């Protein structure tokens, strides 16, 4: 399909003996905000790594802009990554570089721009996330939320066509969370950046996502806009959406009969 930015075709992937993906297919159109959600450990971050070419699927293909990611050589992959930004859960700023140098890093690697130009671009990006004043600080001197915002500035340094967000809302206070939501929305609306958000924060994600994919047990169990999903009847999706403690994903870890186990302990 000409309109998809990313296409995942029947991908399987295992880590050790665990099947993480078992024939998953999905499509991410240009310029949309797509959320990938699911229970913890369902391999959402792994999917981002497959799209970014850090991992190769066991079977199936991943297409980015009509290029098959797993067959690219080093140089082609380098070129592909120039057009992808990734925001990691912990920010993942380089601790030995200042905020300024962190944002300048992709610029220095991928372009031959003179330092004056890089300086201006870095300041613009930091201004966009509201941290221009903190450019000389080091990651250890910034709060968690600020770390993530600088990391976002770094992710957009090269004005990529696609940005992947790995758990962008986790562990942030409501204000910081609001800031990040706002930034993601702005980037998408103003620049038409395709945004892939991996999260299990339903509320925030549903408020900005155009499409939501729900992955559980290595399979795609739900797809559609937030409104469509809320109406989905499947009990698994209902449990996830409503946040029910018990349902298709059981509350109790498999164990013996409770009464039996208690009675075994003897009298006290």
């Amino acid at each position, binding site marked *: 399909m000409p309109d998809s930015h990313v296409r995942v075709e029947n991908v399987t992937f295992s880590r050790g003996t665990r099947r993480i993906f078992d024939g998953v297919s999905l499509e991410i159109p240009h310029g949309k905000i797509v959320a990938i959600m699911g229970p913890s450990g369902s391999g959402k971050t792994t999917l981002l*790594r497959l799209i970014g070419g850090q991992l190769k699927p066991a079977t199936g293909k991943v297409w980015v802009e009509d290029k098959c990611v797993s067959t690219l050589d080093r140089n082609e992959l*380098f070129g592909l990554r120039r057009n992808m930004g990734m925001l990691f859960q912990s920010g*993942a700023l*380089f601790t030995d570089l200042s905020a300024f140098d962190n944002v300048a890093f992709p610029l220095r*690697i991928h372009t031959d721009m003179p330092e004056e130009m890089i300086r201006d671009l870095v300041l613009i990006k930091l201004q966009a996330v509201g941290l221009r004043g903190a450019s000389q600080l080091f990651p250890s001197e910034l709060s968690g939320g600020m770390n993530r915002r600088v990391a976002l500035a*770094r992710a957009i340094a090269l004005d990529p066509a696609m940005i992947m967000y790995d758990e962008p809302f986790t562990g942030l206070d409501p204000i910081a969370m609001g800031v990040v939501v706002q930034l993601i929305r702005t980037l998408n609306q103003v620049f038409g950046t395709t945004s892939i958000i991996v999260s299990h924060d339903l509320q925030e994600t549903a408020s900005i996502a155009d499409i939501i994919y729900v992955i559980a047990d290595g399979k795609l169990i739900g797809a559609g806009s937030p409104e469509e999903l809320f109406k989905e009847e499947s009990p698994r999706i209902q449990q996830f959406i409503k946040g029910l403690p018990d349902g298709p994903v059981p509350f109790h870890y498999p164990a013996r009969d409770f009464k039996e186990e208690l009675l075994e302990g003897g009298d006290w």
Partner: protein
Amino acid sequence: MISSLRRVGQHVLLLLSVLGRSGEIWFQAVWRRPRIAHAPLLIRQIYQLGVLSVVIVALSGFSIGAVLALQGYNQLVKYGSESALGLGVALVLVMEIGPVVTGLLFAGRAGSSVTAEIGLMKATEQLSSMEMIGVDPLQRIIAPRIWAGFISMPILSLIFCVVGIWGASLVGVDWLGVYEGAFWSAMQQGVDFNSHIMKGIIKSIVFGLVVTWIAVFQGYDAEPTSEGISAATTRTVVYSSVSVLVLDFFLTLVMFNF
């Protein structure tokens, strides 16, 4: 019987796979032509691994040289051969104690810090993000450290030997009264540059490579948790130290006995 054989076999396979993985990392990091742009990284690493180890190496060298002179004197004076003190201490330092003890100190100080640093970078996803930006962490993080270890170890070992001999001369000549001329002339006659000093340098180069290789791999392979990093750091120190000692035996065997 079969099950214990199987367990041994599993351990051997595990060891081989570890060796293979670490060799692959080492190979990928070092094989590609080093880029001039990475020179500042190398310089910074030589500072971290080499320069910051000088104090501990010099202090240890001085102490060991002095002790060797002290003990050596006590034994040699029984045979009236104190004039051979300089020669004995110099040979022992240059051929064995210098490279080996420097290797152990290097493993403890520089090796553990490299492992912790790389492990932490892995745990905080810095290595991943670097890869996603399109930079090969093997070239940018791993390679400079390997080269820095390769360069720093021999230099540290030489410093150890020089300071050690100086310490020995202070104890032997200035304190215990060994005749200065005999101390130095016996040493100069008996120590051969090619058969003694060069071999010591070769040892220190080998130790530098092995210690850095282990340190880098343990960090790269560490579990990205705090227990994982601490376990990896401990493994670096233990494996490096044992490797240095065992390799020393084999190197000595090959270099001096064949």
